[in-house]
Each structure stands twice: as structure tokens, then as C-alpha cells.
């Protein structure tokens, strides 16, 4: 029996989406704060990202002479994709705004559309660094996407459903007891994907200052003003969405009460942010050549999970 009826718009999810929109910049703050604590600094205020966004939105913009109309479309499309993805993602077992059988492909598709847009915009500047960044981004995306889909396929196999909301709604203690190791494997894989998609250490270092080593940052070098704000915010939304899903998988506490569940979900999201912060401050970024191996490893994990379920 389906817990979520597809092909229906879940209005309650609007509120959840709004929550995500409001809270996602906070995630950066949390991560930075954790890193600062580890480094023994006081660090930026938690709401720094909000300030940055506000400032950027107030600014004008500078565009390269090389660029075309395509250039400013990149951030817009990226943000739009992130938002659309947010509409699909459930939070704390509660369904997303829209859901249908197979929306996990749409989810992945939206993410990769955003990536496509960013990369195209980067190439539009004709800068060698941004081309380099785009090349790396697209390269890493291949195994990351594979790991993500296979991981979700494993979840689908475990829960017997093909829509994100449904499958995450079905994950609870019982399933964990039933298929604990598999879900753990999947969770790990999806966590690695999360790191890759949100460009965190060990895949990418968001606040490096050497273009040669950047991946995502270098692609947005030429964006400024509102465009940059859109990019920054898009990152936030993307991170929120992925964290929400992963939290839904890892924190499978489902009380019947929606409010409780949602708050649990939000707690899970921030817990994940903490973990990311810990990871960032406890290890260095990998050599670029090693990153694909890491992601292929993630793919292997989710494939292993899937095969364990199939046998």
C-alpha cells in the first residue's frame, strides 16, 4: 500500500520547501563554525551567508567582453534546477511537493542540467582556468551520477518503490533491522555523492585561493553581483536538498506526527552539516587524480548494496 499518493500535489510540502529555502544558507554557517571551532578560531557569524547574499544582491555586475547572453543564464538555470529539485525532495519522510514513479531520474536530471548550465557559462568566458574547472566538474559528475542513481536504485529495491518520497517514507527502523548493512552502504555512497555535488573537501575546497586547484569555485570566477548571489544560494538549496534526502535515509525515526517528523528531518540535515564540517576540518582535499577513484569507489559501494539486495 503506498504511503504517498503520487500524481498529487502535496501542499504541506510547500511549507517544508519554504523551510528549506529559509534555512539552507545557514548550513554554510554551521559548517564554517564547526571548522572554526576545530581550528580554534571564533569564525564568522552563523548568519554570514545571509549577509553575503544580501550584499551581493544589492551590487551591480561586471561582465567579460568575451561572454554572450548565455553567461548570465548559467546561474539562473542552476538556481532554477536546484529549486525544482527541492520540490521533489522529501524531508523527514514527508513527501516533496511533487512526486511520481521514477522521479529519482528527474532529480538526477535536474542536478545535471544545473551542472551543464554552470559549465557552459564557465566556458563562455573563454578563460583557460574556467574551462579547466568545467572539464573537471563534468568528469567527476560521471561517476557521481552513477553512484547516486545506483544508490537510489538500491533504496528502491529495498523499499519496493520508485519515487523518492515514497521510498524515503517507507524507510524506518523495521527496514533498518531488515536490511541494515545495505542501507548503511547506500548511505555512505550517497554521503560521498553529497560531498562531490556540494563541492566540499575532500573532493573540492570551497575556500581555496589557487585557481589551478579549484573545481567549482573556478567556474564561477567571472560571475559577480546578483549572479554570484544566485550561484551561492543555488549551492545552498542543492546542499539542503541532498542533505534532506540523506537525513531521511539515515535518521529513520517516523512518528506519525508530521511536525515532529519535519523537525527531526531538519535536525538530521544540520547534523549532516556538522559531520561535513568535521570531515572538512579533519582531512585535506584529495589529489585531483584520486577524486575519480573516490567516486568510483562510491559507485562500487552502491552497486554492492544493490547486488546484495538482488541475490
Amino acid at each position, binding site marked *: 500500500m503506498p504511503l504517498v499518493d503520487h500524481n498529487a500535489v502535496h501542499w504541506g510540502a510547500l511549507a517544508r520547501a519554504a523551510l528549506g529555502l529559509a534555512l539552507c544558507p545557514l548550513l554554510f554557517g554551521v559548517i564554517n563554525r564547526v571548522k572554526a571551532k576545530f581550528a580554534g578560531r571564533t569564525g564568522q557569524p552563523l548568519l554570514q551567508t545571509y549577509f553575503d547574499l544580501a550584499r551581493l544582491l544589492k551590487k551591480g555586475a561586471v561582465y567579460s567582453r568575451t561572454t554572450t547572453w548565455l553567461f548570465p543564464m548559467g546561474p539562473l538555470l542552476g538556481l532554477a534546477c536546484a529549486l525544482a529539485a527541492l520540490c521533489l525532495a522529501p524531508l523527514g519522510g514527508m513527501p516533496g511537493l511533487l512526486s511520481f514513479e521514477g522521479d529519482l531520474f528527474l532529480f538526477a536530471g535536474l542536478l*545535471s542540467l544545473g551542472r551543464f548550465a554552470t559549465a557552459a557559462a564557465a566556458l563562455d568566458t573563454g578563460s583557460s582556468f574556467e574551462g579547466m574547472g568545467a*572539464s573537471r566538474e563534468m568528469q567527476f559528475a560521471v561517476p557521481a551520477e552513477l553512484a547516486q542513481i545506483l544508490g537510489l536504485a538500491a533504496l528502491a529495491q529495498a523499499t519496493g518503490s520508485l519515487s523518492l518520497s515514497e521510498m524515503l517514507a517507507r524507510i524506518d527502523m523495521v527496514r533498518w533491522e531488515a536490511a541494515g548493512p545495505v542501507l548503511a552502504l547506500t548511505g555512505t555512497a550517497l554521503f560521498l555523492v553529497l560531498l562531490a555535488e556540494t563541492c566540499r573537501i575532500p573532493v573540492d575546497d570551497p575556500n581555496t585561493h589557487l585557481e589551478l586547484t579549484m573545481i567549482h569555485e573556478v567556474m564561477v570566477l567571472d560571475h559577480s553581483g546578483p549572479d554570484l548571489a544566485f550561484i551561492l544560494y543555488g549551492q545552498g538549496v542543492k546542499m539542503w536538498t541532498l542533505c534532506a534526502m540523506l537525513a531521511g535515509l539515515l535518521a529513520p525515526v517516523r512518528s506519525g506526527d508530521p511536525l515532529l517528523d519535519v523537525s527531526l528531518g531538519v535536525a538530521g540535515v544540520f547534523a549532516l552539516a556538522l559531520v561535513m564540517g568535521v570531515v572538512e576540518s579533519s582531512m585535506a582535499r584529495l589529489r585531483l587524480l584520486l577524486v575519480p577513484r573516490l567516486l568510483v569507489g562510491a559507485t562500487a559501494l552502491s552497486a554492492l548494496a544493490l547486488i546484495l539486495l538482488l541475490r
Partner: protein
Amino acid sequence: MTLFAACLLTFLLGALASLLPRSFRAANALGSGFAALGCLLGLVPAVQALASPQDWELILYWPPPWGLGALGLDGISALFLTPALGLMGLGAVYGRGYLANMEGRKRAGPPWFFYNILAASITGVFSARDPLLLLLFWEGMALSSYFLVCMEDRDGSVRRAGRIYLVASHLGAAFLLALCLQPGASWPPAYGLAPGASVTMLPGADPAGLIFLLALVGFGSKAGLAPLGVWLPEAHPAAPSHVSAVLSGVMIKTGVYGILRVLLAYQPEPWWGWTLIAMGGGTAVLGVAGALSQAEIKRLLAWSSMENAGLMLLGLGLGTLGRAHDAPLVAALGFSAALIHMVNHGVFKSLLFFCAGSVLHGAGERRMDQLGGLLKRMPATGTAFLVASLGICGLPPLGGFASELLLGLAAMKGLLLPTSSLDIPSLAALAALILCAGIAAAVFVGAFGAVFLGEPRSQAAQNAHEAPALMRWPMIFLACLAPLMGLCAPLLLNTALGVLEPALPGAQALGAPLVTGLTTASLVFALLLALFGGLFLLRRTLLRGRDVRTGPTWDCGYIAPTARIQYTYSSFAQPLSEMFRSLTGSTGSATRPWRLFPVRVGYFAETQDRVLTAFLAAFNFMDARLEALHRLQQGQVHVYVLYIAATLVALLAWGLW
């Protein structure tokens, strides 16, 4: 029916008419006009047949030696025929503009003669109701396309491509001969034929399996399946662009069509599905990996055609497995996914080839690493190429996504089946699909970036100009069609299921929830577009009245940037193509920095298809061995008499004992 006959007739008339006039312009106009007209005429009955099943059959009362044959349109034919005719018509319009700049260098008659023949043959292949007719049209298609490929025959590489193509298609046709001439053969094979009911080809062998193999090799070689379709990346780029569009966008589908017919006719065995999925997956990955390391844009497109043919075959394979293990949902999903992908790929790949053609026309340069910055110079072409790339990568909200979604769903459903019979193939299909999607995105963002974005890398690109209207409008039309096809995906799926209904009873009912699902997806597409529009307006309002300056690209303080420091396509794709080097055997040549002040540093990659080289090597080897036999004819009349005497004795020995 009369319209359909008129369509075929128009093609034939056009073929002859284009040869008559001596003036270039007249021939150009006549040929393209007739082709376009024929396509329009044909579209009407095709769409009718798509909407409601037609019962007419166009019987050709043909005098001996052929006897009579019949043409007809059922749903499947119509579903293949509709995009085919549309694309060929657009190709005709585009081709008129494309050929116009060859005035004085070539005659316009022959190309249009063969184009019309090609159009007629393809229409015939999709609508033939008789094996002999199928053969006739098939050969006509192969020949006319060969001559179109060889249009620029002054170029040695084109001749080589043509030769390879001719031999390959003839070898493929040999299998079709065997398929269509076996006693009691019928085309299209009737549904639900018991295996071997009609076949007595090889006593002992499993007849249905034999037919399947014959069809797979015969049709598959036209569909460009590895390792049979190795000619494809050679032949398609060699043709003039509007022809490449038809070859890649339409002719490949004739192969898929043939295989689909055979699959639907017989009760398949599981190993059929395994074979199809293995071949399809292999082709898809090989194709997209080959596209990674191409230097010329049209070759890149051809390789990606190979990939998409592979994806269609994956769909067919899943559908076949579904039928073999009676999982009707998987069957319906797989087949319809293949059909829808067929339509989408047709549209997008033709559009891409049109764009490549207008780049060739505008910049006169086909090497991507020599192009760049064309979006400013040819905005329409660039935009169209962007849209088509999004579509071909299967990204939302365009049509390509729908077909890849269905394919993925079919694989997932296969995984979720209670029986474990479909697990491994479905997993393989899923993995191949996602892998290809990822790499395709990299390929096309790289190609688009290298060709249209950044600064021009050569004088040719510097002086590029937009294509003439005749070439521009078909591109614009298709580019506008692309998002529509994304939003209308549910409709398309419904049509495909309806078309499959006669072969797979109950397909439509099973597919209903998926249709609603796709509708939700279209809702998300709409949402996405709305968000995009909203953000766009937001940005407009934000930036109004603020100072928006322009400056140089951020160059990290490097004072003398040139266009040559931009990332080329080769370097863009290098990390990924390194991953797949073992598969494609791409020959990357890197000039590494050297000494304290390095002079030249560069990287260049070009795939030499391994399978093709292997084939050619094998052929040459055989040739050489056989050439040794030429000594038998050594000029001594005595020995010749000895041959006669020996034959006499041998035959006597045979006869009298």
C-alpha cells in the same frame, strides 16, 4: 492512400526532374521542392495512421518479374514514418540552402536525384508489406545513400569512407537476402508467429533464433551497432550535412525498425534479450566514449548517433526480456522507450547535423579546436545547437529526458520484479544508460563550448557568418519543437503504447500510470521553466539602474591572454577519454612542456576505431592470402590444358564411381 501513392510518385518525379535542367539553381530548386512536397504529402496519411489504425493497403499491380507487392501503414510504420518524413522534408529545405554555395563547383542534379531516391526508399522500407519490396527499397536506400556520401569524392578520405560504407552495407544486405528469401517468408512477420512455423532454413538449427540472428546482423549493421556498424562514424560525417542529418536521424532507424518487427513477431527466447542488451550497452558506451576523443564536430555527432542506437537497442532488449519472461509491463516500457527515443534522437541529431552544417558553411572549418566564439557570430545556429545538445544529453525539460527516463524505469521495473531472471541485464542496462548520460553531457557541453563559446581560435572562426535563411529556418523550427516534445512526452508515450497494443495486448492499460507520471514530470518541467522565467525577471529588476560594466575575463593577472590559451575540446575531454582509452584506443598525442621556457605545449586526440581497424586488417590479410592464388593463372598454355585434362579426369572419377 492516394496521398501516400502521390508521395512516392512525387519522390520519383523529383528524382527525374532534378536531372533535367542544365542550370544549377533550377535543379536545386526542383529537387528540393519535390522532396519537400513529397514529404508533406506523405505526412498526412502517416499522421492519420498514427491517430487511428488504417486498413488500406496500397497494392502495386506490378508486371513480372516482381509480381505484385503491397504497401501499408500500421501504427509502427506510421510512428517511424512520421518523424522520418518530417526530417527529410526539413533536410530538403535545408539542403537547398546548403548546396547553393556549391554553384559552379558541382552539378545540383545528381545530389537531388539520389536524395529523392533515398527519401522514397526510406518511405518504402517503413511501409513495405512484402519481403521482396523490402529488399528492393533497402538496396535502393543503401545505394542512394552511398552516392550521397560520396558526393565530395575528390576528397580521398570521403572515397575511403564511401568504400567502407558500401562494402559494409552490402554484407549486411546479404543477411537480409537470406532473411527475406527463405521459403514462406513474410514481411512484416505476422504477430505471434510460432517459432519456426514458416522457416525451414537450416534443419536442426533453431529457426526463430536463426531469423533473429539474421535480422540482428542484417538490420543491426544499418543501425550502427558495434561491432557491425563500425562504418557509421566514417560514412555519416563524409556526407553533406543535410544528408548526414537524414542518415543519422532517419536511416539508422530503419535498422531499429527491422529488428523491432522481428522481435514483435516471434515469441522471443531470453538469450535474444541478453544479446540485444549486451550489444546495445556495448555500442552505447563505445559510441559515447569514442565521441569523447574526436577532433571534428561531425565525426563527434556520428559517434553519438552510435551511442543512441545502442540506447534504443537497450530498450528493445529490455522489452524482449520482458516478453520472454512474461513481464508485460517491462516489455511495454522497454519497447515504448525505444520508440520514443527513436523519435527524439531523430529530431535532435538532425538538428545537430544541421547546425554542424551551417558551422561548416559559415566558418569553413570542421576541426573544433580551430573554432570558437561562434555564438556571437551565428546566434541562431548556436542557440539551436545548445537546445539540441540539451536534448541529446537527455536533460530535462527536453524530449530526450523522457525517453531516457522510460528506459531507466524499464530497467528499474526489471530489477523490482519478484523473479531474479531480469536482474543482471536490467542492472547492466541501467548502468550503461546512466554512464552514457553522464559522458554525453560532458561531450556536448565541451563541444558546444569549444565551437560556440569563448574567443575564436582561428581566422576562419573570426570571419564566420550566419547561415542563409533557407538553412536557418529548419533549425529554428526543430529548436522550437524540442521543448514541446519535452512537455508532450505523455502524449508521445500514449501514442507509442497504442502503437504497440496489437503486438503487446494490454500495453496501454499497463502504461496508463506511467503516462500520468510523465504528466507530473511535465508539470515539474513547467515549474522549472516558470522558476527560470521568474528568476530572469528578478535579475532584470535587480540590475535595472545599477552600473553594469564590462571588462576582460578574469585572467589571474596574466597580462597577454590569447585565444590559444583557452581550453580546447581535446583538452576538455582528455581526463574522461583517458578513462576509456582502453575501450576506444583513442590516440592522444601530448606535447609536454619541455625545458625552462617551453615553446609548444599541446594535446590532440583522435579515435581510430579499433573494431574497424581490426576488420580492415582482417580483410587485407584475406586479400593477401587470396592474391597468392593469382599464380594459378601463370600464362603457360600447357598448364592450362593440364587444368582441362585434370578436371576431365576428376569429373569422370566422380561420375563413374
